[in-house]
């Protein structure tokens, strides 16, 4: 668990409501903080190189090069090209999930029942596949680009036999994670319950998004120095800008 100690002027803030989806380019040198306002939030995250969108978040590469199945402060989120799309520079909840993925429309209906726009208007039951797909479509991306996603604020453990367990209460009200972009990174977000959250009610939680600019690259020291692999990952990333 690593809190952020530095006060930085905020460039912009926005509320991502429960069920919402959004996407934007996090520019090189910017920091995005995602804050869980009520506790129990879940945000599905995909990342791409904004300038060359065939380069995408690769969770297997990220996990194996850092010898971890959980992602938290000090870890980097790698593209398939060996570059750091984002570095986790602060994190107060300690575990973000790589296993659970997202539900599609049929799976959401099976879990929560029918929740159509016709009856519920903007409270209709969204699903992670369509949320991410629609947002990616705005950048001319498609189904092929819907890769393994990271579920922020959620924790799923594997026991000694490999059985998976959703750990409720991983994120509390006020918990946050900060993502630092050492390159221009397209960020795609969907705020829906984790697929393995046992709550039978459709009740997605809101998340506050906050952008700031980092004056020096010193913020990435924790991630650069946490493993020798990450020093090489940052080296690969900086080669984009020589």
């Amino acid at each position, binding site marked *: 668990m690593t809190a952020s100690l530095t006060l930085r002027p905020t460039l912009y803030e926005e509320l991502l409501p429960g069920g919402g989806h959004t996407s934007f380019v996090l520019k090189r040198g910017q920091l995005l903080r995602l804050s869980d306002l009520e506790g129990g939030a879940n945000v599905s995250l995909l990342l791409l190189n904004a300038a060359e969108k065939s380069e995408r978040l690769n969770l297997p590469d990220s996990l194996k090069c850092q010898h971890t199945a959980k992602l938290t402060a000090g870890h980097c989120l790698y593209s398939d090209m060996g570059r750091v799309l984002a570095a986790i520079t602060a994190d107060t909840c300690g575990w973000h999930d790589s296993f*659970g993925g997202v539900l599609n429309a049929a799976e959401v209906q099976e879990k929560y029942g029918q929740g159509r726009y016709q009856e519920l208007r903007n409270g209709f039951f969204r699903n992670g596949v369509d949320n991410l797909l629609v947002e990616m479509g705005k950048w001319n991306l498609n189904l092929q680009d819907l890769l*393994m996603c990271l579920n922020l604020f959620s924790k799923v453990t594997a026991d000694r036999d490999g059985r*998976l367990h959703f750990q409720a209460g991983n994120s509390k009200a006020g918990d946050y994670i900060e993502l630092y972009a050492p390159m221009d990174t397209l960020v795609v977000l969907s705020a829906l319950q984790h697929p393995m959250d046992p709550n039978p009610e459709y009740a997605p939680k809101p998340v506050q998004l906050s952008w700031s600019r980092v004056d020096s690259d010193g913020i990435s020291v924790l991630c650069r120095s946490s493993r020798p692999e990450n020093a090489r990952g940052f080296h*690969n990333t900086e080669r984009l800008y020589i």
Partner: protein
Amino acid sequence: MNLTHSDKHPEAAVYRATIAAGEPFLCEVKAGQTLRLLDLEGNQAVDTLFYSAKNPRERYDPQRTLRKQNSIYLTTGTVLYSNLGNPLLSIVADTCGRHDTLGGACAQESNTVRYALDKRYMHSCRDNFLRASLHDGRLNKADIGANINFFMNVPVTPEGGLTFEDGISAPGKYVELKAHMDVIVLISNCPQLNNPCNGYNPTPAEVLVWD
């Protein structure tokens, strides 16, 4: 681990091919056919991807597969699901007992991160996937998602650790899958020399198909 054997005879197979160490491979398996991947000499990671032959945009989905079986390892009884939520194949026999789907495929770029910048020019699975895909014409880079590493041992601890361990496979170990739809099978017989996934000695693997 629960090991399950098959009663199928290699002489009755309708198709057999040996993939030399470090080579790419692509073939089709029809709905109802059974595919066996055989680790001929032991400790050989066989990096594999599956696609619907009718719609190659439909591909193997590791997160849905893990979620639906509520388990991190693949073995007999595992149903491999697609990104559209359909079953692609089921594992029907397995004499190895555990296969990985979190470790992904090695690549020139990830080798620079994992080992050293000058490891960039070693052969890799991602290069094999691209070579086979682009020659076939139905697949390209965008289709290459996270794969299965048959015969590879990547234990995940309850504390969230993940390591590449020495293989638990051995000469003659195999895994068998029954296809629920016509599938494209894309394989890289892993050439990685920098970690124990191939016992530091990549070796051939065999593919067999039965009607």
